[in-house]
Each structure stands twice: as structure tokens, then as C-alpha cells.
């Protein structure tokens, strides 16, 4: 791809940022753009600085704009809701999405329906950032994604960025959005790098992005799986299979037209998702394609996690997670049918 960082080295000296730096830049710019934006959560202002995404913010903006909290996920979530209801734009951070299980009532009964039950008179402009997914031996309580659970709820926007420049634009939009946003950051992405424009920019929270164009097979993916899918697509290209790759970005309010027009062209679809297949986003996308009556040449496929909790043991992790070979093999099989 022409914009791949490895291809850009000779051409220019474009700014290369990591995913973590891009998140930090989005927050810094949001702080400057709107004095009502603030960040809070457990240990967000110290030590690891949430995978370096909040480094330096305390020094620059002071403790009114970024502060630590006790271990009170429920109260933190409603604190964000109360502050948002009174004109602020809070960004609440959870170091692992698994801790958000504490906050089911707050999301289900308050935040997601706040605009609805006021008949649109109230809004809830808050962002909940949470770190998701696979990490070194993180095991059953520290490696979930839970995105499809959040996406089930009307009223929430669920965003999962796949690269640094995407993360910056999507986070800025999320913070400035008047709807509540769950912003899910795949842990493995923090050190990925690419060119990120310096000026603030905003990405539509409902629009998927075409990442690669091809006529043979449609892959829809999200978050870190987009990179795995790209790797698979590049291998498939060597076998003359051209992938149309769509990065979903927004998991609950995505505009379906890019997916439909792609599948109408390729007549084959694979959805790649870091999460359980039961009641998943993949199920939703495939259902919509089928409901829409788009004729397929081969049965639609899901590449997800097995319906099992995440094992810790290294050897089992290997079995649990899919890799780019699983994606290519599925695609090759589909092309034969």
C-alpha cells in the first residue's frame, strides 16, 4: 500500500507516531480545544500512565483536568454521567475492559438511555476508554473484549480503532461527540506505528473505512484483527486472491452500505473478530448481508474466538487465538467453493 510507513521512508520525513502517542495527542488537543474535557480513572495520572497514553498531561493541565480515583468503577461511571449531564466532557479510563463488568447498571439503565428517555432534550457526552484483548498470560479475567455486549445496547457508540492515525481521529470525534462512546483499545496495538497528521481531525463515528480493494473476497474486521487481516490479504495476493478489506471502526452504529456494495461485488464474506462468536458483531454483519438478499457464491464465514474463556497457559493461548494463516486458509477454502 502506498501509505504504508515502510514505503514512505525514502519519500518524506512524515511524522511517525505510535498508537499510544496518537491517543495522547488526541487527548492533549481535546483539552486545548474544549476546556470542559477532563480525564479520570484509577491511576491514570501516574506510573504506567495507561500504557503511556496520559503521560505529561498532569504536568501540563493540572489535577482538575486529570485525576486518580479510588477503586469505585460504579461511582466513577456515574460521576462521568453526572458531569456530562451538567456540561462537561469526561473521559473515564479503565485499564482493562473486564473491570467494566462492575458498571453494567450504569451503562444499561442510565448512560445508554439518557438521551432516549429525555426525548432528545438531554445528552451524555462522555467517553469510556478501556483496554481490551490479548496480552502476555493475561488469562480469563484480563483479556476479554466484550465489545459485542456493549454494541447490543441502543444509545451507546462502540468504537474500536485499528491504527494510530485512526485512533487519533476517532478519539477526537468520540470526545466531541454528544453521544456516550465506549472506546476500546486493543492492547497489542499501543506500539504499532504509522504517520499521524499533526493537526486535529475528526473521523465520522458511523462510517467504516475501506482498507484494501479487491474483487474476490470481502473481509470485514475491527481493531487489531484488521492488521492480522491485512497480513492475510497480502499473502493471499501472492496466490492471486484479492481482498476487499473493510475496517468497521464503529461496532454498533456502522453504516452498512460499504459492506453491502463490497459483498455485492465479491459475493464472498469473511468477518474477523477478536471475541466470542455467540451473539457477536460477525453474526450481526452476516445476518444483515443475508437479510438483504445479497447472493453469495459461498457460505459466509466467521473467524472468532472459540466460545470459551481465555486460557492463560502459553500453549493454550496459541490454540485459542486465530492468526493470519487461519484467515488465509478460510479465504482459500471459500474461493474453491
Amino acid at each position, binding site marked *: *500500500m502506498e*501509505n*504504508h*510507513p515502510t514505503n514512505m521512508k525514502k519519500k518524506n520525513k512524515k511524522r511517525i507516531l505510535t*498508537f499510544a502517542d496518537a491517543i495522547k495527542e488526541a487527548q492533549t488537543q481535546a483539552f486545548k*480545544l474544549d476546556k470542559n474535557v477532563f480525564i479520570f480513572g484509577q491511576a491514570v495520572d501516574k506510573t504506567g500512565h495507561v500504557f503511556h497514553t496520559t503521560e505529561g498531561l498532569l504536568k501540563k493541565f493540572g489535577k482538575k483536568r486529570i485525576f486518580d480515583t*479510588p477503586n*469505585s468503577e460504579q*461511582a466513577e461511571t*456515574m*460521576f*462521568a*454521567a*453526572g*458531569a*456530562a*449531564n*451538567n*456540561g*462537561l466532557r469526561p473521559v473515564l479510563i479503565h485499564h482493562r475492559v473486564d473491570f467494566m463488568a462492575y458498571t453494567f*447498571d*450504569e451503562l444499561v*439503565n*442510565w448512560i445508554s*438511555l439518557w438521551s*432516549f*428517555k*429525555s*426525548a*432528545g*432534550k438531554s*445528552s451524555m*457526552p462522555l467517553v469510556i476508554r478501556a483496554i481490551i484483548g490479548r496480552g502476555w498470560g493475561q488469562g480469563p479475567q484480563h483479556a476479554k473484549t466484550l465489545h459485542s455486549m456493549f454494541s447490543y445496547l*441502543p*444509545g451507546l457508540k462502540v468504537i474500536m480503532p485499528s*491504527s494510530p*492515525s*485512526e485512533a487519533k*481521529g476517532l478519539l477526537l470525534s468520540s470526545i*466531541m*461527540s*454528544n*453521544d456516550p462512546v465506549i472506546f476500546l483499545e486493543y492492547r*497489542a*496495538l499501543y506500539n*504499532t*506505528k*504509522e*504517520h499521524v497528521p499533526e493537526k*486535529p*481531525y*475528526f*473521523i*465520522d463515528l*458511523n462510517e467504516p473505512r475501506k*482498507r484494501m480493494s479487491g474483487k474476490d473476497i470481502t473481509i470485514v474486521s475491527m481493531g*487489531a484483527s484488521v*492488521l*492480522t487481516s491485512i497480513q492475510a490479504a497480502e499473502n493471499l495476493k501472492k496466490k492471486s486472491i484479492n481482498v476487499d478489506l473493510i475496517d468497521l471502526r464503529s461496532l454498533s452504529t456502522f453504516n452498512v452500505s460499504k459492506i453491502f456494495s463490497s459483498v455485492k461485488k465479491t459475493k464472498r464474506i469473511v468477518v474477523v473478530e477478536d471475541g466470542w462468536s455467540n451473539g457477536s458483531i460477525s453474526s450481526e454483519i452476516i445476518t444483515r448481508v443475508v437479510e438483504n438478499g445479497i447472493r453469495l457464491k459461498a457460505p459466509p464465514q466467521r473467524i472468532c474466538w472459540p466460545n470459551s474463556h481465555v486460557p492463560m497457559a502459553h500453549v493454550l493461548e496459541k490454540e485459542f487465538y486465530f492468526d*493470519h494463516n487461519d484467515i488465509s486458509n478460510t479465504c482459500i477454502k471459500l474461493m474453491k467453493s
Partner: protein
Amino acid sequence: MIKNIKNSDKLKIFYTLKLIRETQNQIIDRYHPADKMKCPMHFCIGQEVMPSVLSLFLKKEDSIYSHHRSHGFYLAKGGSLKKMIAEFYGKVTGTNGGLAGSQELSNTDINFYSGTILSGALSMAVGDAYAKIYQKKNSISVTVIGDGGMEEGIVYESLNLASKMQLPVLFICENNGYSTHTHLRERVINPKAFIKVKPFGIKCTYIESQDPEKLYLKLSKIINEIKKTKKPQFIEIQTYRFNGHVGPEGDDHFNYRPKKEIDFWKKKDPIIMYRNNLNKKINNFKKIEKKFDLKIKKIIDDAFIFAEKSKFPKDFKKYNYNNTYSSVVKKFYKNDIKLLKDQEKHKPGQGGKSPY
């Protein structure tokens, strides 16, 4: 500190007591057989003292986050009776456009919010108070909870946050002794809720009396202190609900509370007691009360007519999402939505190789 209460304030309290009581009675009377208000309702007959007195101390910019037995506090905050009844009718002119009903009665215009899943509202008030400090406003957040709500874990997380961060919140607990039909004795070791609040370093006040004037003196002091110190305080009032837990029907046929207990509290009916009190102190009181009654009857009748005449809502789906952005975004794009879709302009790369 206020020691004497002006007669005009006494009459305001009495008027609000009666307005809340009569509104409840009228809703109960008209609920069946008309069958036009089709939502569950939690009435607050017997519990009118706290809202009636509180109403004198709150300004528009102060907010209330209430439990589900909220009608009294809504009216005390100056909420429109017309919009409230229209909401119960499920009409588009209701406080929540007919989408929420009695259980989640809310109105942004007067900063009044409520909800029926017990304790979220209390927690929300803490964040609301932070926004007040953040924006350097001198207003306070008030939240009302029942003794049942005081059993949820989120309450203690929120009390801790409010205390640690020093936020101007007035926590009110209306202790009516029952969580639906379960008495406090079956639920907790100590029936007084404030005992559990004290260890958080929050100043607590406990009130057993149903005399509005005693409450008036306490509240005026407490609210002044909260505004001055920006620290939260907690007030618990012992009270009793005369009506059933939910719905216009009574529920005493379930025998969950002793008749002796009901009679004891009905003898202490705050409206009857305060009427006797004012009758002795204020000239021409009977005449004034008659005037109040006529005025209240008119307001309530008008509200029901308004609700009857209003239309049912047509939309509901569109309210789930605002799909709008802060005006900040418009500074970057003349036509924000169109240009936001044109994001390919920022031409991102592929974000490097897969980490796996």
C-alpha cells in the same frame, strides 16, 4: 442562622404540602376506571415534608437527582404539573415526551432527574457537583434516596468520592422503613442509614420529627454550610408512606405492616399537624387554606385537561442517538458531517505489521 421563620415561608410550605398531597390523591382517584395513565407509579402520600421544605431553599441552577418516589420533589423543584400529568398520559407534551413515565420523571429545564433502578441517581449527583465546582458555580446538587437504595454498593463508593473530593452534595435519605414490602429489620442490623455514612467523614443530621419548621431550620443551616464549605452533608428523615408501594391500589391486604404502625403514623400526618399549628398562629388561616384549595384544584384540573388534549408521540427511535458533535468540530469543518465522512483525506497508513 435563621431562628424565626417568616409567615410567608410557612404558608409556602403548607401550600406545597397540600399541592403534593392533592396531586397524588387526584391521580389515584382518576387512574381507574379512566385507565388513561398506563404506567407504574410510586406515590408519596405521607412523605411530603422533605420536598415541601426543601423547595424553599433551591434555586434553578441547583439540581435534584431523585429516587423513583419522585413526584413531590419534582413539584418542589418547580416542575410543571401540566407536563408531569401529560407524561403519565404518555403524551408528547410530557416532561420526557411520553417516553419515560412516572418512574423516570425528568426535566432538564429545571435540573430535575430521577430513575427507578435504586441508587444510580445518587451517584450521578456527585459528578454533577464536580461540574459545578469545575465551572466555579455556587450551586449545589441534591440527591434523594430511600432506605432501600441505601443498601446498594454504589452508594458507598459515591459517598467516599464526594467526601474525598469535597463536593457540594446534599444527600437526603427518606427512611420510610420499607423496601417494597420488606421491613428494615429484615435487611440491616441498624435501621438508621446515617450510621453507615458517618465513617466517610460526612456530617450527618437525623430527623425524626414531622414538623416542617424544625426541618426548615436544619435545612437552612445545612445548605448554607454546603455552599460555604463545598463539602457534602447527609440528612436522614424518618417518614412513612401512607399509600401502597406502587400503583393507585393499596397493598395493606398483604399484611406486611402492622395496623398499629399505620395508625401511629397517620396520627402524625404532617399536613393535619401543620394545619393545626398554623391555625393557631396565623390570622385568617382557614380563609387562606380555602384559597389554596381552590388554586390547587384549578391547577390540577388544568393539568389533566392539558394532558387529555395533548397528542401522543410519534417518534421514539431517533432519540437513542444525538448524532451531533460539539461546536468545536464545526471550527474545523464548514459542513461537519459531510467532511467527517471524507476522512480518507487524512490518508492513514496501515499501522504496521500485525503484532502477532
